[in-house]
């Protein structure tokens, strides 16, 4: 196996690592209390306030640190729900096929036909708005079909492989075949999907909060901050730029990792 240099992966790991470090620091320490309204309003970026202050006189840098943490936590939870359920469904339908496969995949198709934000809004209106757990649940459900589809293809393509057939002949239980023999071999396909999924989750959280149904104030999340910043584009452009740029960096970093993983996979194959 020849390991070629993989710039994307390295750059992605470094960028994401740095972001993660900042977020971890933000969980325990921020330069100011992110909800305290102590400073003057609309201070431009300075040494005291690295990213300036917002319309309430809150330190934007502290809010970005805290907000990125909230956004990433929510995105990871969304991805957790979607990936576990999606891969489970994909594994079952892909491996067993038959009527269950047909029914689940057609339901899947139907769900994919709706724009995901719209679908999430429907779920939220059923669950009741105003709680970030409901947003996590709603977006988690909405992202299931994507994972189910990708993993189904992966499992179905490996179903006929010789080592699976031998395992079946040896009388290995179906659960063990799925978990021990098939799952590890689909990781190559699933990993890039996971990174893309993470990015979609970050962006969806941002859009939900932007629409005012995600995080409730005065808590910070990147999307909510962006929606607050919109009205102040003229007076405090740094607010929108800083929260927007953070989203971009987050997504870009993980996107690079995903790209890198895909390249490595191709290299291996």
């Amino acid at each position, binding site marked *: 196996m020849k390991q070629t240099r993989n710039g994307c992966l390295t750059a992605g790991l470094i960028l994401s690592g740095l972001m993660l470090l900042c977020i971890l620091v933000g969980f325990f320490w921020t330069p100011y209390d992110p*909800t*305290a*309204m102590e400073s003057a*309003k609309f201070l431009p970026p300075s040494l005291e306030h690295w990213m300036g202050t917002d*319309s*309430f*006189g809150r330190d934007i840098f502290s809010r970005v640190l805290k907000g990125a943490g909230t956004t990433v936590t929510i995105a990871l939870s969304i991805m957790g729900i979607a990936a576990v359920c999606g891969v489970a469904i994909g594994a079952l339908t892909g491996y067993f096929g038959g009527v269950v496969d047909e029914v689940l995949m057609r339901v899947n198709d139907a769900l994919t036909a709706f724009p995901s934000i719209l679908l999430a809004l429907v779920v939220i209106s059923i669950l009741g*708005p*105003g709680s970030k757990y409901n947003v996590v649940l709603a977006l988690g459900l909405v992202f299931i079909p994507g994972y189910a589809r990708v993993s189904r293809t992966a499992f179905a393509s490996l179903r006929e492989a010789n080592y699976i057939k031998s395992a079946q002949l040896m009388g290995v239980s179906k659960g063990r075949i799925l978990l021990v023999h098939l799952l590890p071999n689909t990781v190559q396909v699933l990993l890039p999907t996971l990174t893309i999924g993470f990015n979609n989750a970050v962006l969806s959280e941002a859009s939900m909060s932007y629409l*005012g*149904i995600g995080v*409730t*104030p*005065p808590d910070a999340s990147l999307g909510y901050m962006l929606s607050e910043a*919109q*009205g*102040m*584009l*003229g*007076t405090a452009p740094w607010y929108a730029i800083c929260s927007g740029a953070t989203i971009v960096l987050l997504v870009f970093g993980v996107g690079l990792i995903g790209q890198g993983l895909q390249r490595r996979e191709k290299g291996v194959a």
Partner: protein
Amino acid sequence: MNTRRLVAGLLSAALMATLMSGCGGTAEQTAAPTQQGEEPRPNEITVAIAQDLDDSLDPHKTVAAGTKEIMFNVFEGLVKPTPDGNLVPAVAESYELSEDGTVYTFTLRDGVKFHNGATVTAEDVVYSFDRCADITGGSSLVEALSVVTDVTAVDEKTVAITIAAPDNEFFASLTLAILPKGYEDQDTAPVGTGPFRYVSRAAQDNIVLERFDDYWGEPAKVEKVTLKVIENADSLVMSLQSGAVDLCAKLTSTQVAQLGDEFYVAEGTMNLVQALYLNHAVAPFDDLKVRQALCYAIDKQQAIDIACDGYGTPLGSSMYPGFGKYFLPELTNYYPHDVEKAKALLAEAGYPEGFDMTITAPSNYSYHVDVAQVLVEQLKAVGINAKIELVEWATWLSDVYSGRQFQATVVGLDASTMTARALLSRFESTAKRNFINYNSETYDALYAQAQATIDDAEQTELYKALERELTENAANVYIQDTANLVAVRKGLEGVVFYPIYVLDLSNVGWTE
């Protein structure tokens, strides 16, 4: 290749020309007021409104406050409100009240005309009241008119209105629009007697009003008003900056900050009582000491400064200064900001460590949400850990207002008519609109007494006593009457504010 290049060149030349003519246009416009002898500015204005007038334009059926606000310019009643909160004769010239206080006899003004040219007669007045009060049984279109038992045309110029029992505040409902009898198209092509007549409406885009030249009173200053529907807050600011709009009411302080030098800001009030309304049926807000502690913990002025850039009038009870006669300014600082006192009161009430609470706020009203955010910070200082729950307006109405399922909520309550009753009746313990479950025997007794009083001065005193009772009992944490910031293009004058939700355009005009 050559031809393509030629076409491209031509296109870009054309584009340049359009751009330049565009620039030229704006330059001319801005230069017009200073240069004499130039083409005079057309005597018309463009006003931006946040929502289309998409419900019925029939004033007796209109529900949306935004529609009523604009159609105020088209319709008039027997009497009409003035900016200082009084009612003056409009379609009627004078009136007499019978000894027992149940029969109002109106003499109509001479020569009042409808926009369709017809002269207003007593028949039209009877028609308008019949339509709304539905004297023949059934439900009345206008709630306040349900007390009307009879309306008769005594002669061509005289109308007698009889009500079931004497009622001081019935007079306020006589602002009911007078409509021409037999005209069927009020829904879409309304005809009234106001200073402006309705011309046209393009859905989601604009509404055009023109000066009514046969108006009985002072004619409107401008010949034509175009109401431009701009729902998006950001494009609104851009339209103001670009010169497409001359006037716009109800801006936020953030929007105002982005306006250029071509505008000045007229500041009025929204006529709302914005407060942290507390549910008295839920612990710990059933405890007077806790409510007082909340009042001491809150710094109204700081909330106004942070959330509204200092625009807003602090309040201390359920009454705003627009109602000059009833407003008690001394109540505003009844509970000065005092963290120590708040803590002491909380300790006395058995909450030395504070408590957790949820503030519900309607997510579509940023000025309520913003104030709620400041309150959360202020409450932290006395150990109260408040959390904000954002709900949609429909949910707020069903859960908080109708369902009364809440702890505390930040909203603004307004008055539907120009009466103190409109603001104070909701705190009577059995009132349907008493969503905070306020329950005070003293209040109920005073309120009943106020309703039974016919003498106006005496009634005013009773209403003031009710306000005092609300403040002393710390019924709610009163914050402010939110500011109504109106952006007005320089050179334009005459924006006046009313204690009710209307935008009077008849006085607005260019100074030169």
